[in-house]
């Protein structure tokens, strides 16, 4: 019989997990934790985290706090529309990652910013 133990079981020994199953990992998180869906090879399991990993931002809602991926040109971000660090080849200006900089500013490859 498939093991489904709420809280801690072999597949989901994590502090932030509220309910979980062996195959899906965390199904829901304790209050204040974020649900992050982690891809490990062919598997995708739920993980409950106090803050989202780089490349993701946290969104709180009554049903669930979730980690959502930043825009593709963005390495890290506050939210969907405000990037804090760009991917190589993109330059940060006013929270946006662009391939070119506005007039009067130049591209800094080290900081990946328009300076």
């Amino acid at each position, binding site marked *: 019989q498939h093991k*489904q133990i709420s809280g801690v079981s072999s597949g989901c020994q994590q502090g932030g997990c509220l*309910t979980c199953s062996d*195959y*899906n990992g965390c199904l829901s998180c304790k209050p204040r934790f974020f649900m992050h869906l982690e891809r*490990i090879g*062919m*598997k*995708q399991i*739920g993980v409950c985290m106090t803050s989202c990993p780089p490349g993701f931002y946290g969104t709180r809602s009554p*049903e669930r706090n979730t980690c959502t991926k930043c825009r593709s040109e963005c390495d890290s971000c506050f939210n969907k529309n405000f990037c804090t660090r760009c991917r190589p080849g993109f330059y940060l200006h006013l929270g946006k990652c662009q391939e070119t900089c506005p007039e009067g500013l130049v591209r800094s490859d080290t900081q990946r910013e328009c300076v």
Partner: protein
Amino acid sequence: LERPALRALIKVTLFKHELTGKPMVLEGVFVGGSAGKAEGKLLQYHPLSLCNTSEDERQDGDFITIVKLERRVPRCLPLLDKANMALEKGAQAVIFDVSDDDQAAAELRETDSLPRPVILVDAQDAEELMGLVNKNEEANVIIEIKVESKWPQYD
């Protein structure tokens, strides 16, 4: 007269046995008038990953999604929308393990508008598939329509 649900053959070959291995043949049921052939690598999606169209992971190459449905996961969308979302994310077909969510089977059987194959599995067939996923055994899956023999065997 209700049309009998077409059964699916799910042929699974582990990548590591690709050349020599004989495929493991499992069965499921097509839903939503979606019976057809499909092929791709097996890829698990958490039930919560089919809730919004966030720009999450893009897969390269053909893949077949498997989702283990659980009643304890609050339904963020009707299953038909989840199936369509998985197909929009590029899946060649979607397999739903309904072993722990019997309502799902009833809900999905009502649909009739799916563009690519969607299959329900449960019990031993589901256990075999999810066992592979749990061990992260990369596998290629071929889905075909099971041709029922014309004359049922009378003992």
